[in-house]
């Protein structure tokens, strides 16, 4: 909920219609997620490279294991404190009520922390099905062949566990369903170079829902949301505020909502809980093996920092920021997330002309919400001042421009 809306609710004022509709969507998502949470036919997954189509083809709801927004007291017994709070939070969730409704978990060796989470889950939690799968670091022909074989093995193992026949046509149906959902999400993310009618945090919220709900149910909600977004666009109800690019490790919606609360407009994100997880596509070749297609689809997408191609992708970053007229970049490090530590360091060097706010914290934001709010507010205030200075002084002092932003170029705030 926006800050203004909280005030409006407190004073009994009527919310604007557009905000009422957004609140309606948000509440609907909450309800649907809660309903799915209580269902028994779910298979947990962690990394956004997980081929959810295979899980769905085995009549299970692919359910992303999110971290609990609470202290990880039980998980801390099993996982070392130098592993990120996302995996510790995920284990905490699995050990609590959420875990009892899961049929099992599928984890990839995305990082050392994920490997250790797998071990903890399989050892300390009596799930019926556990699967640990390799994830190659690039999309070379050898990697595609290898991973296609891995996916086939995984499908076979899951079908055996479910006691059902392995059916390729069912898998193809799921591939089509997920392809359509991603395509519609990509359309929503598409036109954001100009004015935007939907704030990025609502898109990220949708992405999160796509990771928790059955694909068919999500498709209905997505249709409703797309209609709303289109109407907003047609009416010219655009979001106002500094245009932001959010990137970094996995982070909770609490943190993301703070940005909106403080008046920032998320234009783009590079999160595995956001744009990166849904805006990828591949056209199947005639007669292509579905497993090979899935390998090509997932390994060929915009890379996560863990992948080999992620650092080379930085070369396009400056252009991207210019194209989308980004005013400021927020880089969020999840504490102990190596992938972003190593990428973020060079990324920070590459972004030269746009202010960058670097934040570091835990997934849950436990106890850090206030600090985050203050820091983001200060950053947005600085961006607003810079924008107004640039607009107001442009005619008086033409030399004032990006060059003068030097002193603000980087603000490092660590929690």
């Amino acid at each position, binding site marked *: 909920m926006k800050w203004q809306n909280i005030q409006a609710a407190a004073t009994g004022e009527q919310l604007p219609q557009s905000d009422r509709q957004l609140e309606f969507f948000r509440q609907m998502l909450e309800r649907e997620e809660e309903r799915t949470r209580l269902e028994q036919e779910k298979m947990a997954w962690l990394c956004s490279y997980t081929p959810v189509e295979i899980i769905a083809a085995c009549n299970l709801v692919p359910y992303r294991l999110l971290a609990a927004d609470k202290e990880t007291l039980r998980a801390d017994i099993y996982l070392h404190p*130098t592993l990120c709070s996302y995996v510790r939070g995920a284990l905490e969730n699995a050990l609590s009520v959420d875990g009892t409704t899961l049929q099992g978990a599928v984890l990839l060796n995305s990082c050392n922390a994920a490997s250790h989470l797998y071990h*903890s889950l399989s050892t300390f939690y009596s799930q019926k099905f556990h699967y640990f799968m*390799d994830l190659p*670091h*690039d999309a070379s022909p050898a990697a595609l062949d290898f991973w296609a074989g891995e996916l086939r093995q995984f499908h076979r193992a899951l079908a055996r566990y479910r006691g059902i026949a392995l059916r390729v046509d069912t898998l193809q149906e799921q591939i089509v369903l997920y392809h359509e959902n991603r395509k519609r999400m990509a359309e929503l993310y598409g036109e954001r170079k100009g004015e935007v009618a939907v704030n990025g945090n609502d898109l990220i919220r949708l992405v999160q829902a796509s990771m928790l709900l059955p694909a068919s149910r999500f498709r209905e909600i997505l249709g409703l949301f797309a209609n709303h977004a289109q109407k907003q666009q047609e009416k010219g109800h655009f979001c106002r505020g500094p245009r932001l690019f959010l990137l970094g490790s996995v982070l909770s919606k609490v943190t993301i909502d703070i940005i909106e609360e403080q008046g920032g407009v998320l234009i783009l994100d590079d999160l595995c809980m956001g744009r990166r997880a849904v805006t990828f596509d591949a056209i199947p070749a005639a007669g292509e093996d579905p497993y090979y297609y899935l390998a090509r689809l997932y390994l060929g997408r915009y890379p996560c920092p863990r992948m*080999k191609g992620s650092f080379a992708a930085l070369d396009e970053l400056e252009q991207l920021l210019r194209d989308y007229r980004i005013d400021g970049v927020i880089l969020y490090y999840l504490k102990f997330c190596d992938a972003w530590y*190593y990428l973020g360091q060079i990324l*920070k060097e590459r972004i030269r002309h746009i202010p960058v706010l670097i934040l570091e914290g835990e997934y849950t934001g436990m106890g850090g919400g206030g600090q985050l709010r203050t820091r983001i507010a200060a950053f947005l205030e600085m961006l607003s001042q810079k924008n107004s200075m640039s607009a107001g002084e442009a005619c008086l002092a033409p030399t004032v421009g990006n060059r003068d932003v030097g002193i603000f170029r980087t603000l490092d705030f660590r929690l």
Partner: protein
Amino acid sequence: MAHGLLKLGTDLNQIGKKIARGVSRHILHWPLLYSLGQETVRRGLLKFPYESKRMLVDYGMGQIKEAYRRNAVLVWSSAFSPTELYYALGITHFSPEVASAMVASFGFQEMFLKEAESRWWGRDNCAFHRCAMGGVFLDYFPRPRAFCASTHLCDGAVLLFNNLAARYRRPFFLLDTPLKQDHGALNYVVQQLKSIIASLEELSGKKMQAEKLEEAVACAEAARRELEEVNRLRRHPLSPFNTRDAIAYLYLYFNGVGSPVTPHIYNTLAWELKEKINGAEAAALKPPRFRLLWLHMPPIYRNNMLAYLEGKGARAVFEEFSHVYWEPMDPGRPLHSIARRMLSHFGHGPVERRLHAIKTMVERYKVDGVIHFSHWGCRQNCGSVKAIRDFLRREGIPLLLLDGDCIDNRNYAPGQVQTRIDGFLEMLA
């Protein structure tokens, strides 16, 4: 006035330091320096406890000298990458992680770490990598033509090399090592090795000759056999060779597999160990009170952890990095042999593999207890702590968990460590 003079003095001091740093950096880039070093070692002007260590230092200096040659085709390689390929192709390689260990052993790590930290390298990631980045920023290291890393064990290495490749804008060859050890995984690694060889050929302008590759694998196999012999001798109750001595020889494991020099050094070490054990038996020396197994690496910077143990009658008789985990290598099938060696690392994949290896080492070296050194920033190592603790408890083997850092000595508190060691030894007694 006085303040002005003081400031002038401080400025001069800073300028002096900068000049000294610049000069030292330039001197370190001279191959001649390492030739002089080799001569010093060969003429016996430096004393070593083992002849094999003298050979090792000579060999290491030779490698560094090659790395600093202007026309060298230099590849930076990660700690677990397949070095057999470089030896077969005659390519010089340089490991930034090993360089970090050397920097720390000479006590210069703080300057390197601080430099990296001033450029956005946080203190929560691996200090081996942070120190290496400090060396990069300070321009102490030789300039690479390409980067080559393998993915097993260490996430950070892949990320570090990715960062470096983007920074230097040089090619990055990655060996993706799967968790499984089946036929599919083996083929996948072999395919990648072929691809890396093709890339290295293009880079160096040299063609890989089959007999050279076989020769490198034969050397790797000879080294494996010799290391097994060294390890066999280390089982002896009177073996004086402890983890502190063994750390230097890990250079061979990380950098020397495939080199013809490596088996000679291990062979010499084995011979020396035999002599020392015979001498100890003749002198009727007493074995240590407690035999310990060291998991992960001990700190590389100057510290008294292992010496303190020795002083208390306990000896770290073995460390997991010296464990020979890979099967005999077949020079007739070089790529398959290298691939098997890569895949069979016990620290890669399910934690049960590491637990099994620990049990093997505990039994083989007849240890009374285990010390696990949790290197801050090593997710692979630290993450297994709970599993190891539970496993050793079930097996009835005492365990001491020590948190610390192998490179960064700024949080090292000798008093605390000694207290914990005292407590552990009291329990063993």
